[in-house]
Structures are given as structure tokens and as C-alpha cells.
């Protein structure tokens, strides 16, 4: 089974990368861009077809290592 783990900065954490990307977009004339946040997407293949088991395992992995709970949150997407 394939899955995606999206790791994003918490909303109250300043994102220096997002800020610079936004400034660049504005400088290039994309004037309606108001906010940019840069996140990570991690593609994972699991050796199981059990969706529930996959989700539990990925949640543990994300909690332990993929995301830093101090600054980041995560979201898991299982592919069909």
C-alpha cells in the first residue's frame, strides 16, 4: 500500500522559507499571493494491505520521527 505523510509547520510557527517564497512571488507580479507555507510530503510504501494497521503504524512513525511535535503537525493520506 502507498501512503503520503504531509508534515507542516504549526500555524503559529514562523516559516522563513514560506516568507521568502511569498516575497519572490510578489516580486514576480503574483500580487494576489498573501501567504505561503512550505511543507514536506513524504511518500511511503508499506508491506500491508490492512488500512487500519497502516494508519496506526504511520501515526506512530510520524509522532516519533517524521514530524517534530514542537513545531510541526502531520496528516496521513492512504492511497487506494
Amino acid at each position, binding site marked *: 500500500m502507498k501512503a503520503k505523510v504531509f508534515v507542516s509547520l504549526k500555524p*503559529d*510557527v514562523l516559516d*522563513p522559507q514560506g516568507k*521568502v517564497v511569498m516575497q519572490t512571488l510578489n516580486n514576480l507580479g503574483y500580487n494576489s499571493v498573501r501567504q505561503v507555507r512550505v511543507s514536506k510530503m513524504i511518500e511511503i510504501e508499506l508491506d500491508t494491505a490492512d488500512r487500519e494497521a497502516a494508519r496506526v503504524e504511520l501515526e506512530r512513525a510520524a509522532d516519533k*520521527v517524521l514530524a517534530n511535535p*514542537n*513545531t510541526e503537525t502531520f496528516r496521513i493520506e492512504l492511497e487506494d
Partner: protein
Amino acid sequence: MARFNVIVFPGSNCDRDSFHIPSIRGHEVEFVWHKDTSLSRPDVVYLPGGFSYGDYLRAGAIARFSPIVNEIVRFAKRGGLVLGVCNGFQVLTETGLLPGALMMNRDLQFICRHQHVRVETAETPFTGGIHTGSVLDIPIAHKEGNYTIDAEGLQRLRDNGQVVFRYCSAGGEVSSAANPNGSLDNIAGIVNEGRNVLGMMPHPERAAEDVVVSRDGAALFESLEKFLA
């Protein structure tokens, strides 16, 4: 004479300097490989700067699961002295021994230069010989040194006097102009509540002998020696 253990991860690049300074001061220093499962009877564990595991995922995130790090956590929880510099600081926040996290620098650039920091507390084994308010010139070299913590955590750091170093001007003024990386409250180094674990972005081992521009980093080693004597 004290015993220093310098931890070596794949990608550590300040391990030789971190070995060199304590050893020229007459201490017994040993390298400890990240795959080792025991420390070598240290008085001080030194987590050096560098790019452990290429900074993959997040700086310090993978090193945190090295076998030796469990031993370092155990050592620290028994009150052992742990000094994490630069990448070492990042590893310490990832382990949870120190609160907060180190994010990418405000201007997204790797900064390598001399930097003034103000000593905010002498009540640590690492700064015991230094007057509070002293300004030290110690080089920084990092891209992820932008310290952050939630408002509650910051308040706790302040209330407990856990902020050890803050970025400042040559005259000791802590201001945003003197902040190289956007670090919250100009924080350059903190201790844990037990005051036996210090994480700092500046590199004291790069400013601790006469052949280099500044000798100010030697003050940390002098403090440790005084504490351990």
C-alpha cells in the same frame, strides 16, 4: 583532569576541534562512535557541530535515534554534564533533553562569522566562572539556528533562568539588529531545568586558543574545570 567523550556521527565535522581543545587543556578525551552502546566513563559528553546524517528530514532528527544517544539521555538524566554545540544543540532538542527547536535562519542563509553573545547566567557548570552580562566573541556557523519555542515554554525558560547566551552587539546590547538568524528572544544557548545540559549555536571550540582570532570560548572550558575540580 576531566574525561571528555566527543560523540561522532556520520557527518559530524567539528569533532576534531571538540577533541583538540579539551586535550590541549590536559584532559583525557575519547571519541565515541554513534553506533557504540556505551559511553566511556565521561565527566562531560560533547556533542559536536556538523551535519549528522546530512541534516536529512530535520537537523538532528536521525542522529537522535543513534544507539549512543539513548546512553547520553540516561547519562544526562542522572545529572551528567552534556554540552551540545550547533548540530549538537539540534540533536539535544530532538531528544527532548532541551525544549524548543532550531528552525531555518530567517534569511535562509548559512551564516559563518564571528558573533557576540551575552552571558545571561553564571549559574550553570558551563558559565560558572564568567560574570553575568559578559560579552563573548564566539563564531557561529549554521543554517538552522533560529531558536523557537511556544510562549509558555519561553516564559518557563525566562522564569527559571535557563537562557544562557543571547546574541548581542559588541557593546552587549541585545537587539534585533544584533540577531543573526531570527532566533526568538535572541536566544543563542539554553540549559535544561537541571542545568547540566547546555545547547548553544556558537562554537566555543573555535575560539579557545591563542592561534585564532578570539579566545573567549575558553571561558566555558575554564568554568567546567572549576566545576569539576
